[in-house]
């Protein structure tokens, strides 16, 4: 049971920390992208793509979390 608890903590750390990291990265890109969009509306597409690039980190975090939980299985 204690082991299951540790696994759960491990999985949540993998996912949570990567989400925080992505948030920090996206914060600045997003601010800049919105600024650029205010000047030139056509930049919406480019801004969106640049903003979501760091999101990959969360997805890998999610995958790792799933794998960790799978270890418990």
């Amino acid at each position, binding site marked *: 049971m204690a082991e299951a608890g540790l696994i759960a903590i491990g999985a949540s750390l993998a996912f949570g920390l990567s989400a925080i990291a992505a948030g920090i990265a996206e914060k600045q890109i997003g601010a800049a992208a919105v600024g650029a969009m205010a000047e030139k509306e*056509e930049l919406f*597409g480019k801004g969106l*793509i640049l903003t979501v690039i760091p999101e990959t980190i969360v*997805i*890998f975090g999610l995958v790792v979390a*799933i794998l960790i*939980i799978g270890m418990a299985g």
Partner: protein
Amino acid sequence: MLETERMSKITIAVSKIKQKEVIKTLHDLKVLHIVEHKKTEELDIGTPIGSSEKIAELLVKITSILSESKEAVSKEELDSINRTQNLTQNTGNAGFSLEEIEAKVTEVETIIKEKKEIISKIDASASKKKELIQKLDVLNSLYLNLESYKLFKSIACFVGTIKHKEGLKDGLEKVTGTFKLHTSQNCKDLVVALFVDRKKEKEALEVLKQYNFTELELNFIEDMKGLPLSHITRLNSELQKQISEKNAIIKNIETVKSKNIEILYQYKKFLSIEAEKAEAPLTFGQTKEAVIITGWAPSKRVDKITEKLENVTNNRISIEQVAPDKHESVPIKLKNNLIVKPFEFFMNLYTLPTYKEIDPSFFIFLTFPIFFGFMLGDVGYGIATLLLFLILKRLIPAAKDLLKAMMACSYWSILFGFMFGEYFGFEYVKSHAWQTIIETLKLPLHKELIEGAKSEIVYEFPRLINRMHGEVNVLGNEINLVLVIGAIIGVFHINLSILLGFINEWKGHGLKTAILARASWYVFEVGLGIIALKSLGLITISNYIGIALFIISVIMIYLGEGAQGIIEIPSIFSNTLSYLRLGAVGLASVGLAVVINEKLAMPFMEKGGIFILISILILIVGHGINIALGIIGPFLHAIRLHYVEFFMRFYKGGGKPFKPFGANANNDEESE
């Protein structure tokens, strides 16, 4: 459907005499996207039609009258005006003559101007009176008759305010023996009146100045007599009268305005159309006798344009199709059938395709609602959002397209809801509450025993996939089924994107580039697939084939896309995994719904009595919040999967929208 509207570039040459008729016809047809003429040696820029200055002037006048009256007219009135305007527009806008408009506008303008002059006169006299009242107020506290200040020539009189009066009398006595001092405390200041021998005037003033004396000029008294108070009351009543007079005039102006506002709006509409027509020649080229109009029109409409223009000008016109310059950008008009049309919204939001590119609206129509439905996937939520979108569609006609698209999303949510067997987050019903209903209606629900601290029998809803607990074994890991489905959808979606990219490259840069830059990714996938399957021991093909294909594909990618392509290789994995969100967002939504039902509402429900009301309240608020999240989340994630993962491999965009001459007037309301 996959192509944007095909366009032809045409050049119209016509004599200046017929210019007006041609402009009118083109304006009515609304099919020609005029290309602005650049001044060359042979062809000057056209000159606006004569009345354009007059039109502009009237337009400015009307706008200024209307902008002033906006506050006075309530929103409902404006709405009703807009409606009647639309009606007149639809019935073909009975034209007005410029003289008629000018007469009316000048009439309204002079009335308003006259009244405003009266108002400013009243304002001036009122402010004078107010000033007088203030001065009289100071004197009022002394209780002296006004004539007494100027009674004698040998006596000087100072009136004003001072800071304090300790020792003032002694100070004055040192200077002169003949004086009379009155002081009185006004509400904020100490008011003083000093009558002194004119010979000692200067010295007395010096003494006063030591007490921060601020003198009040007494010239204003003139021939007023008696106590100041009587004058103040008189002035105040006069002031009151003036204010009511002014209010009456203001009201008068408002009635003049609101009486004319409807016709003024109609004039404005009419004039802005006329102005557009009158200024159109600025985009034409002209010689001494003729004008030349160049523009883009949908290819299938060219014949009709030609026919109409020839009719209007008695065949004295030349219309020619010309070949566009190689790098000229063609205006883009999306062309989709009624079902796909609402999804053009997403293209307008992002960027329009260029002329040679595929219009992805159809693919968004295919997959966007499925993605949304897969994420929200709940019968109850689907129906709730469907109703919400229906109501919103009535309330906000401007967002009609988006809401139509969202309704398609709701249908898919309901469908996936049946698949997942979820109804407002409930996956089963408890036997003791529902048994009689289920058994009398003979509902085909599965009876199941949930074991735990309190074992109970429940009726499960039928389902294909259990979203919360359904798991599959992938390479020895138990992974939630919906996540795996998400990744599989991702593989298909990305491969579709590569295929579309292949077609776009082929059309844009030829077959060789298309194979190197896009088909190479398929080779890459096949190579990688062989390596992966071999290492799992599922196939017996030699590993070298896989490795060879892998290396070949990397070289092809490098040749096709350069170093950037190599950098992008890992992104194909992260992009595919990105589709896991299809399952993950849904799990979050289900999780929240289950918490609301079982952890928050159920405990109250079981207590009975008044607590049932509380639990119902919790259910309404909780599911309301979850539905709001359930619209925003899946919408953003679905749109992002299209804009980023899907578009990345085939779509560049950057097309300029097709804006036919004359179409603006119709869309005025929406754009405002």
